[in-house]
């Protein structure tokens, strides 16, 4: 019990030693955070630290396994998100969760539309209110259009509008700024500050330190599902926070090995897809790691998906090792030595309900077949080789991949693609959601592979990772390639400027 806490007003929201596990994965070991009214509280931590899990427990989406959860001093236990909403908690989830077939207005008010005495929804009032909120946020989105096809940024803005319209005492924002431009972020901050000044409690999750320092009053750091420390913003520094987050020095995370740079292995020229990306040209050479940086939503994933052939493109060309690659044909791309470790491993990288063995051999299944027939033996043998090489932690090869921890899942995806023996390896967010130790291992592996002569194109939203690993850094913004820096010139300022500045300048 916190007898020493201010006895006058209980904190708006208080979580203490909350535990949550999914099967064998312990997502949250001891989640602890205290939100005060009239204050903005930052929650930071590496990918997979358990921030979103904590948020979902507050939202009533998950039920905690243990620990206490108090709201204005009273212990609560939410079974559904409706209960937390009713208790005055508004949540912006990390991934936008809109109903694509419904209008923007309906999305904002779903389940609590203004009604008249007879329960009839008052459409006019609803629409007017939506417009008022958009005006406050300073954005122009047609409240009558369906949300299908909106950009990620617009979707995120609707999520924010939704949370604001709730008029909640507690507002939780899980990476709301990830997809927003500088101007939009500023507007959001203005709204957040005014809400704080009205006496509400806010929680803000972000990976960008500048934002955290600009907006928040207090900061809580988490690592590996555990609470590490809570400090007033004024008494800490970026270096201190990073030390708390990572638990060691950052430098050793990026063990860059010297590699001999060879000829062009991947040549992309003038790639264009209307509305998504434009005139993208670059090359990746043997032995080279090229980083592709940019804000979330810049279109980096779309570019590499088009290169690999999963997505279409309208014009431009792709050459692998000197030979042109046909459009939209991943099979040929694979045969020519291209491999893509996709950004969303749960959706794109793995068949979660299949065994580890089947996943690792999925991309090489044809070459494992003898006389057209494929038996379990060769599959398991091939899978065992790559599992042990990457040290995948699994009890058996027929365990369902979905039961593995995130980092081990990522290793399975890496193994699956390394098994194809590629010349060019494209990795999209290779360390998203994996723990610190594994992260270093992945980095070491990428470095080794480059040393062996692979051409590697690495997309990452973590600037330190890009700067630490890449021989060359490309930057994308809004579908355009806006910068290219050799390792020596790639400073955080230069890269961030290329990723954001021009847009702000234009506005």
């Amino acid at each position, binding site marked *: 019990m916190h007898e020493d806490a201010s006895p006058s007003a209980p904190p708006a929201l208080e979580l*203490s*030693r909350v*535990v*949550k*596990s999914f*099967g064998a994965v312990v997502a949250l*070991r*001891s989640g*602890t955070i205290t939100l005060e009214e009239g204050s903005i509280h930052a929650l930071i931590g590496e990918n997979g630290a358990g921030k979103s899990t904590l948020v979902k427990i507050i939202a009533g989406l998950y039920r905690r*396994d*243990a*620990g206490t959860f108090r709201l204005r001093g009273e212990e609560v236990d939410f079974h559904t998100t409706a209960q937390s909403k009713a208790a005055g908690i508004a949540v912006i989830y990390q991934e936008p969760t809109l109903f694509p077939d419904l209008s923007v207005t309906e999305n904002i008010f779903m389940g609590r539309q203004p009604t008249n005495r007879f329960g009839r929804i008052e459409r006019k009032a609803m629409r007017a209110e939506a417009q008022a909120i958009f005006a406050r946020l300073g954005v122009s989105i047609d409240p009558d259009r369906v949300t299908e096809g909106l950009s990620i940024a617009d979707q995120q803005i609707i999520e924010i509008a939704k949370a604001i319209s709730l008029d909640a005492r507690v507002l939780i924002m899980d990476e709301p700024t990830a997809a927003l431009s500088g101007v939009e972020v500023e507007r959001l901050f203005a709204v957040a500050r005014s809400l704080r000044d009205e006496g509400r409690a806010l929680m803000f999750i972000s990976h960008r330190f500048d934002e955290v320092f600009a907006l928040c009053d207090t900061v809580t750091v988490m690592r590996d599902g555990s609470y590490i*420390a*809570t400090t007033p913003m004024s008494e800490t520094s970026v270096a201190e926070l990073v030390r708390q987050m990572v638990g060691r020095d950052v430098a050793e995370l990026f063990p860059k090995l010297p590699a001999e740079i060879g000829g062009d292995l991947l040549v992309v020229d003038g790639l264009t897809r209307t509305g998504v990306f434009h005139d993208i040209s670059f090359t990746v050479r043997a032995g080279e790691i090229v980083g592709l940086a940019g804000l979330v939503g810049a279109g980096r994933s779309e570019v590499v998906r088009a290169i690999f052939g*999963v997505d279409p493109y309208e014009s431009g060309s792709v050459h692998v090792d000197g030979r042109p690659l046909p459009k939209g044909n*991943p*099979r040929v*791309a*694979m045969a020519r030595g291209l491999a*893509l470790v*996709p950004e969303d491993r749960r*959706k*794109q*990288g*793995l*068949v*979660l*309900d*299949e065994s580890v*063995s*089947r996943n690792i051999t*999925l*991309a090489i*299944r*044809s070459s494992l*077949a003898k006389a*057209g*027939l*494929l038996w379990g033996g060769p599959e*398991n043998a091939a899978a*065992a*080789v*790559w*599992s*042990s*090489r990457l*040290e995948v932690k*699994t*009890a*058996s*090869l*027929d*365990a369902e991949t979905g039961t593995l921890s995130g980092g081990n899942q990522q290793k399975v995806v890496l193994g*699956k693609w*390394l098994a194809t*023996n*590629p010349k060019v390896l494209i990795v999209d967010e290779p360390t998203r959601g994996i723990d610190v130790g594994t992260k270093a291992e992945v980095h070491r592996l990428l470095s080794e592979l480059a040393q*062996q*002569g*692979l051409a590697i194109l690495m997309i990452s939203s973590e600037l330190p990772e890009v700067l630490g690993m890449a021989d060359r850094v490309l930057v994308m913004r809004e579908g355009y390639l806006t910068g290219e820096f050799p390792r020596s010139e790639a400073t955080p300022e230069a890269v961030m400027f290329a990723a954001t500045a021009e847009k702000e300048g234009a506005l």
Partner: protein
Amino acid sequence: MTTTAPETQTVRTYKAHAHPAWRRVLVTREAAVIALLVIVIATAIASVPNFDSPLTVTYLLRDLAPILLIALPMTLIIITEEIDLSVASIVGLTSVMTGILTQAGWPFAIAAITAILVGTVAGFINGFLVTVVGLPSLAVTIGTLALFRGIAVGLLGTTAITEFPEYWTDLAKDNIPGTPIPGIMVPFAVLAIAFALVLHFTPFGRSLYAIGLNKEAAAFSGIDVGRTKFLLFMVSGTVSGFAGVYFTLLYSNARGDNATGMELSVIAAVLLGGVSIFGGRGALHGVIAGVLLIGTLGSALRLAGVTSDIINVITGVLLVLSVVSASFLAWLRSRRISAIGRKKGRSSTAPEPI
């Protein structure tokens, strides 16, 4: 310029399987269906008069043959998370085609092959609409169910064609010499083995499961999801066409309404056999056992004087129970796991936060 062969010093070794072989074989949905089938057969032999006669086997397999045949491609289609409701209409259409062409004086073999090709074309239409136009297969095949049936009924109008060369009708009906097993079981066995091999022991089969479980990940692994499904719909049309020719010969009868409603029998049997309607789960031996289970149960009950309506009720109950029990077991398991998790959480006395 390639990755080196994986280092030989294996740090970890991996068991291929978490459970011993007998458990993997016996504790499965398929094994349960087969066990149920054996129980039904044993009970029927013991208590239903005349069930043990060879005629039972002959009639049962003959009548089930079209369902058995169509269940093969249907299994593959449902495993890729699609569905084909138009199969019975394709049977009707090819039956009518066989009749019309035979009546027009074509040699029967040519007429039959042409009819089967019509089935392929029907499957092509389904495949095109589902994969190229990108429509949901449930909606598409509800449409083609009406369309193909409508063409069949429209072509033949009031008449039924009943004259077919005796050689062929006998061929369709004759047993394998010296056994009570109808000759149609020979092509069925060949097809069943081929389908089983393809589904369970080829790279193509692996891709079907991957598509059913996660088609995005499948596409990212270089699997041409569209082309694969297209192919399956065409195979489904072809096999349904073959079943249509057999159906025509078995009853010496080409009519527009032949095999009406058979799609539901096929799908019911496939689902009973352990194939998940959400795709990615199921095995052919389970499906064959599922078809035989429904057929045998029906045959035994009819012999015992139970009317066809009760048989329908039993089929329906089996179907509902089979999915509900699976989801009930999954629910039990998840409850156990979360209970364990909660216990773990409580016992771990985390240090008081700073």
